[in-house]
């Protein structure tokens, strides 16, 4: 197999793995939906107590925001760092080093393969939640929907770039549980997954604005709701693209360093 073929084969394999463990994946998603339910009840109570808009969000908009956040958060879940750590602990990384492939591209192929399946199952689960809470706001028109899809795709690239960079730390620390938990905590807050960034105090908004995380949830969710005018939207998509490319390049740099420190366990 030449060129793209080998990466397509890897993507296909990871889809097959997804199907083998489909019950686990789906149950995992339903498990995380309890969190979404709790959020819906919480915000419903808040909006009942203060009718109208909070920080510019109405209740239908907030419902849409929460669900977009849930769907985007369900793509490329938490495996990358963990897999890298296991590969290193068990010495399997030797096989990857011996293969005539680009390491980052191969990881991307396996990560991106199941994304359409993850997307569809998350949308299905999200639709049930939306139905139970009386529907959500949809994008204003086709153009808004298209811009949202572009932004969502960029968000997924940023997610891959970030998680890949963080997974590289496994070459130095071997275990990555701590770093993964820390990454998720920071990411949940600064991406806007917990709460829209406009709710933050000014100083924290300034911090979030210069970091890549906002491109993972906040930017696509705001494009979905059409909350930014055209120039701002273009600028924010540009920022997303900047971080996607930047993080992927940073990951390549880290991989070069990692090859110098790698320890192969076992034999």
């Amino acid at each position, binding site marked *: 197999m030449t060129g793209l073929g080998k990466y397509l084969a890897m993507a296909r394999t990871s889809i097959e793995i997804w199907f083998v463990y489909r*019950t*686990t994946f789906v*149950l*995992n998603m*339903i*498990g*995380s939906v*309890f*969190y979404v*339910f*709790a959020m819906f*009840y*919480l915000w*419903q*109570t*808040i909006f009942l*107590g*203060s009718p109208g808009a*909070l*920080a510019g969000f109405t209740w239908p908009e907030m419902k849409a925001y929460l669900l977009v956040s849930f769907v985007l958060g369900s793509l490329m879940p938490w495996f990358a760092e963990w897999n890298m750590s296991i590969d290193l602990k068990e010495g399997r990384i030797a096989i990857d080093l011996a293969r005539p492939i680009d390491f980052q591209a191969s990881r991307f192929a396996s990560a991106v393969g199941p994304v359409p399946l993850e997307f569809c199952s998350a949308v299905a689960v999200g639709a049930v939640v939306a139905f139970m809470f009386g529907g959500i706001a949809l994008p204003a028109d086709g153009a808004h929907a298209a811009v949202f899809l572009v932004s969502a795709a960029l968000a997924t690239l940023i997610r891959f770039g970030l998680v890949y960079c963080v997974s590289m730390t496994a070459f*130095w*620390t*071997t*275990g*990555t*549980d*701590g*770093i*993964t*938990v*820390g990454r*998720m*905590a*920071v990411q*949940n*807050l600064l991406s806007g997954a*917990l*709460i829209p960034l406009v*709710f*933050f*105090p000014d100083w924290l908004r300034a911090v979030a604005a210069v970091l890549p995380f906002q491109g993972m949830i906040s930017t696509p969710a705001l494009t979905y709701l059409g909350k930014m005018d055209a120039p701002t939207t273009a600028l924010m998509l540009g920022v997303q693209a900047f971080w996607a490319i930047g993080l992927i390049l940073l990951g390549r740099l880290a991989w070069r360093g990692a090859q110098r420190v790698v320890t192969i366990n076992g034999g």
Partner: protein
Amino acid sequence: MAASVASGFRSARRLVYLYFRCLGQQMKAILAYEADFVVLLFSAALVQITGVFFIWTIFQRIPSINGWTFWQVVMMYALIFVTEGVGSLFFEGTWQLSNLVYTGKFDQMLVRPVSPIVQVLACAVGFNGLGNLVTGFVLIGISMANVPVPWTLGRLLMLAILIVSAATIRVAINLGSAATAFWISAPWSMIPMFVHQLGEFAKYPITIYSLAVQAMIVIAIPFAFVSFFPTAWVFGVDAWSLPGLLTPLVAIYTMLMAVTIFRVGLRRYESSGH
């Protein structure tokens, strides 16, 4: 009679001793990855701090949620994390049960002359629990200082009893749901995780939920007794405080249920064969 009490006491002491010996071995294995261990402690604390920050940002916009104040909600939140901390620091082994059963490693536990439940509980340590415990207790302390309640000795004593009971409920829920591994053969069962996620509901006052959700976390899987009812009692919220006194009884009941599920499951256990 006296002799049997003495021997009962000796065997209980032996169980505690063996439990900590097992735990110590796991601790050595974890400390092998030292950097990860240190980062994990701080990350666990970070998760809680971001969670409390989330609640704080909401309360910047509104004075109360259904009449519940910021510090009351922080207390519920902190109780969820403290009990989770106890669960992962001392009883992380429940999460390994499905793997032990699936791979047949559980056989080893059956041939040793120690209760398999104790062995399962002690077979892993989750050090992130330490981060959860410390931050959780700090948050409990801060919210106690910020709520206008007279801190009499009796109330403090009851708070301690409620925290111990809440942690017992949490561990019992983990153990009972992990024991489903005896019925479902899979390398990593999702059911304990699924049940664990129900705890999300207990981070907020249960008055915000529909009746079905309330029934689930009060009666079916009593997460409300881990956070909501103890908080209501300690902070003297009259409408909800009375069930808080039931927490120790609920703890005993859930633990008995968990042990029963485990024992029934154990009878079904057939080794995966080697």
